[in-house]
């Protein structure tokens, strides 16, 4: 009986250990919209005084290109720090739940008293298009932060908009039909024009080519890209029909989602969205005016012998 008495305290110990173990885990940053490679993720706000004259200092932030494509991988971010810095923390203002720390590199001979730092960052496709503020701060040997330094980068729109999101002088197309889907399957946007021409990623021009050699008119309406073509993932899973000029008023289009190949995927969901330009001058932007979604499974694959699923019978401009 004495032996059973040991269970009286082992059992609570076991349950206590279980309860204590169920604490909240720390994040490693894999789900962050901004992820730096070979860097350490630390949860929380980026420390340091905003835009003051503290030490150590981030003396420069350099971007290879201040405009970034949506979902860009390995974006190069680098800069210099004052000589008392040991590391640099970087985060996107208002996005994510923490910041990324990289140790600084060698002294910069062209800028005496400064050292270089660099990181390679992945930007999530979920980040909204438009300008975003990148903030960096240097830490000293004791881990104390200096002053924050900011720079701006602009994320281009996922919707083909001629770069107008990041370059205000550009004008957006008049209309864009976008098909996007959820898995790495070779799904094609196909559109039957009022003239009875079926346009596909393999035959992308809305108007019949005139037979003249050379590139077609850049303003010609067309489907851009053959996403996941030949089952090669591209991270986009999106095809768009871009009308640089508005189609004639009252013209109607039939829109299909053609599962050319399921690429081994059992099922996928898709969404069709039509964007039309609204507003005047610099404020003219593409706005979603129509949307429809649905599901396809591997039995719907056509291999290109038919037009696939009819999503919209008569879309009228």
């Amino acid at each position, binding site marked *: 009986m004495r*032996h059973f008495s040991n269970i009286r305290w082992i059992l609570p110990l076991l349950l206590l*250990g279980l309860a204590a173990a169920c604490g909240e885990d720390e994040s490693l940053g*894999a789900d962050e919209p901004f992820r730096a490679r070979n860097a350490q993720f630390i949860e929380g706000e980026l*420390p340091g005084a905003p835009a003051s004259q503290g030490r150590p200092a981030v003396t420069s932030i350099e971007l290879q290109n201040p405009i970034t494509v949506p979902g860009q991988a390995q974006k190069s971010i680098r800069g210099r720090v004052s000589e008392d810095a040991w590391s640099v923390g970087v985060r996107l203002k208002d996005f994510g739940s923490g910041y990324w*720390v990289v*140790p600084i590199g060698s002294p910069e001979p062209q800028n005496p008293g400064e050292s270089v730092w660099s990181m390679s960052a992945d930007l999530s496709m979920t980040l909204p298009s438009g300008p975003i503020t990148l903030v960096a701060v240097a830490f000293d040997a004791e881990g104390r932060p200096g002053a924050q330094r900011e720079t701006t980068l602009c994320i281009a729109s996922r919707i083909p908009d001629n770069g107008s999101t990041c370059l205000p002088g550009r004008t957006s197309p008049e209309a864009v039909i976008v098909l996007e889907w959820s898995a790495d399957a070779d799904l094609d946007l196909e559109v039957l024009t009022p003239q009875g021409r079926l346009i596909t990623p393999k035959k992308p021009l809305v108007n019949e080519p005139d037979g003249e050699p050379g590139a077609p008119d850049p303003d010609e309406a067309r489907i851009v890209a053959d996403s996941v073509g030949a089952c090669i993932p591209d991270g986009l899973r999106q095809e768009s029909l871009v009308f640089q000029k508005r189609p004639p008023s009252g013209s109607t289009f039939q829109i299909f989602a053609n599962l050319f190949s399921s690429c081994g995927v059992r099922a996928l969901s898709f969404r069709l969205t039509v964007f039309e330009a609204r507003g005047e001058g610099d404020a003219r932007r593409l706005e979603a005016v129509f949307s429809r979604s649905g599901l396809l499974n591997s039995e719907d694959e056509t291999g290109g012998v038919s037009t696939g699923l009819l999503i919209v019978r008569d879309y009228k401009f």
Partner: protein
Amino acid sequence: MTSLLTRKTWCIPLFAALVAAPAAAEPKAPNLSIGGYLQSQYEEHAESEDQLSQSGETLNLDRFVLRRARLRMAADYDYAGAYLELNGSTSGGNLAVDVHRAEARLRYQPEGEDRALAQATLGLTKIPFGYELVQSSSQRLFMERALVIRSLFPGTTDLGLVLGGSYKWFNLSLAVMNGEPRGGAVKFAGRDPNQAKDLLIRVGADTAQLGSDAPFSVSGNVSVLTGKGFSPGQPATKARIEWTDVNEDGVIQGFEQTPIPGRAATRSQNFNRWAVGADLQLAYRTSLGATRLLGEVILAQNLDRNLFVNDPTLTGFDTRQFGYYAAIVQELGEYAIAGFRYDYYDPNANSLDTRRGAIVPASMTIETFSPVVGLVLPDVASLTFQYDFVRDHLARDERGIPTDLANDAWTLRLQVKM
């Protein structure tokens, strides 16, 4: 017709021999035994994320796991035996069932002895090195083997020949093995990419084998491994053009295209690897139950095949590993048990890090503190809970200096014997 006649000439005597065999010499029936055990558990890891890795693996490790479902079958004759152990597990992802051990044995066991004086085992068998590697997972209180053992030996079994035996308190094992245990980064498990075989020697003593009723017993082993690892070469490649978006504008420009010429295949190479180890177990029985103290230390070179996989042909220098553990296990009466293990592993004694542009020595050591408590139904089942406090240098602090990664883990396991 000729082939038919030829076949008849050997078929007829063979058939006659088979029919006549039972009358001539009736085969002796083997001692058959079947058994096994099942370990199911829930585990949580602080580093879990609800994401997938680049290779599509789940980063979430908080889950229910069928850790081991072992089915053992043995057939023993006087001088021979066969042993088969199947293993089912979901710890590697999907449910996998494979052969864990498959041994054909010849042995000489004097009458009245419970151990073979001499034995030869051929097949997929336990790697005779140290204590924890040889010990059955059903007998170990701690959830997994110490990190140094899991790193050097990603699997506990390998294909080979083991010669050995026991005389009174003395044990000896001598093995020649492929050196490709299944698990970790071992690419050729079940095969052997080089002609060289791993040679293992394990010499030990165990006073419990003397069969005395003394409350105190001591056992231990010294183990040696020497062999050759394999560094695979690369196949030939075709020429191609690579695009690097140098100015990050998403548009292909002439200066961003790089020709990558086709490359010739590179040759594979072997490299030397070795390990030496020593282990000691002390047991003392009181009215409370048995107290056991366990310890094991291993020094190795180029043998990490799991955690920080070694390939000195690429790095140009040998990598030295050192690890040990010390544990105490205390029975608390018949129905409860508790234990604690301290586990240390240094995967590379010569590792370096960069700090402010300068190269400095850095530690890669990983320490694990593992308290465990459990309830036991003797010889039937156990419910155990273990928390692993892992202290390593896999993260970086605000200064960019390596620091501890938040990767503690706990496991609740139910084990039932079959």
